[in-house]
């Protein structure tokens, strides 16, 4: 205790030095989490502070992640972009729109400018709301989540990350270090259904990712199940990759139907299960048509 009191990074005074921690690297952050179980990590605060302000959450201690340099940076890893868990949406939009158009499009729909200046991928993943907007594009792109603890690092595919409503494989002693997103290998789309054009929690959302050379389709569904979902059946649809012909109406219809089938929606305040399925089919068809149109432009 006394030795910890001398920590120059700790601004707290007296006996309460354990109230607020300011690690500057991930190793320090995970040690801090291990030493203070129950301490609540805070990044942008856009989820956690709502809970605190409304007294649903009364943390005795918090760990500020905004000073952890590695979390605030993104880097080009060749085939993929490694995005630190603490990079706010505004920077994803500004810096990564070209290489990760799907994730950037989803980021543009998050909250408001003020929320996008603060909110992070790490916070979205840790909260693991089925309605979180980052999830569908991460699923569609086949992203991986890098998790850190005092035991070291592990990497989990986004598709295995979510385990239930607001639940994930993240243990109490772990932090999300980064998200590794393969660079777009073709057109990507994100569509979100909400009550108005800004500041909406999605009623349902859909992300599509086409890999032209690999002839692969990625499809992620948001807000229409206990977790964000991959539409695996829809992903195995045959498309006229060999440029043998146009995208047939039948293929588009079928893609929409398969995406709707993959959903496991419920009725809630934002919409009924039936509406969500219907809207998802529309989103999926529209996404495929738009992506294909983009591809045809590239081909011609």
């Amino acid at each position, binding site marked *: 205790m006394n030795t910890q009191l001398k920590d120059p990074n700790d601004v707290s*005074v007296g006996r309460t030095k354990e109230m607020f921690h300011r690690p500057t690297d991930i190793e320090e952050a995970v040690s801090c989490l291990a030493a203070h179980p129950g301490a609540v990590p805070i990044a942008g605060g856009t989820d956690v502070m709502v809970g605190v302000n409304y007294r649903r959450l009364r943390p*005795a201690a918090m760990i500020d992640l905004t000073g952890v340099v590695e979390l605030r940076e993104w880097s080009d890893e060749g085939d993929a972009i490694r995005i630190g868990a603490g990079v706010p949406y505004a920077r994803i939009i500004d810096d990564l729109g070209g290489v990760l158009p799907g994730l950037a499009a989803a980021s543009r729909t998050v909250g408001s400018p003020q929320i996008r200046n603060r909110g992070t991928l790490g916070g979205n993943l840790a909260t693991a709301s089925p309605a979180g907007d980052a999830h569908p594009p991460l699923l569609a792109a086949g992203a991986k989540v890098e998790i850190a603890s005092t035991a070291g690092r592990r990497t989990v595919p986004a598709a295995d990350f979510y385990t239930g409503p607001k639940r994930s494989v993240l243990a109490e002693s772990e932090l999300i270090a980064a998200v590794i997103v393969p660079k777009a290998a073709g057109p990507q789309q994100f569509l979100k259904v909400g009550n108005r054009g800004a500041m909406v929690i999605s009623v349902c959302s859909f992300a599509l990712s086409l890999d032209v050379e690999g002839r692969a389709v990625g499809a992620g569904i948001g807000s229409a199940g206990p977790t964000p979902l991959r539409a695996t059946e829809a992903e195995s649809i045959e498309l006229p990759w060999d440029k043998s012909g146009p995208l047939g109406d039948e293929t588009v219809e079928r893609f929409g139907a398969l995406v709707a089938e993959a959903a496991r929606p419920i009725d809630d305040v934002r919409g009924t299960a039936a509406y969500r399925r219907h809207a998802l089919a529309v989103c999926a068809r529209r996404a495929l048509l738009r992506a294909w149109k983009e591809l045809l432009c590239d081909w011609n």
Partner: protein
Amino acid sequence: MRLELTLLVDGEAVTAVLDRPGESLLRTLRERLGRTGAKNACEQGECGSCTVLLDGEAVVSCLVATAQCEGREVRTVAGAVPGEVREAFAACGAVQCGFCTPGLLVSVADLLGRNPDPADAEIREALAGNLCRCTGYEKIIEAVHRAATARTAENTHTGAPGTRPLPPSPSPEKDPTLPHGCDSVMTEGRT
């Protein structure tokens, strides 16, 4: 339980003493530091009335933990907003009850700092996080255009950089040559 930290508010170094780690910047500003420029309406990030600039970025102060702000620069409506923006709001009737105004002024100052001549769609996008229950937004958009014109004119005269906060200007008079159909004059008021 005590936690002490120093931050820069509207250009002045101030010390805050907190008794819990999750106290919001909004609460600290208003209740511990007596700086009531940022308004408290929802405390859940939805309304934007508590918008401030944190190290130059627009954020909702209700969702920032004060303890995250050690050594950082906070600008409220009192220190973030060029005179032309305030003047344009008054001149265009963009203020009715005034509760949303401080947050909007900060968001507009931020917008004009990044984009000196925004189009309507860009203004709507930039102000999407600031709710106003009174004006219907049209007058606010007019005010942004008016402020942009005034700032550009000012900067052409002085050659000053676009992001410089300007000193307060005298109350606006009704001006028959106002652009964008601004035709009302607001009398001084406080919220």
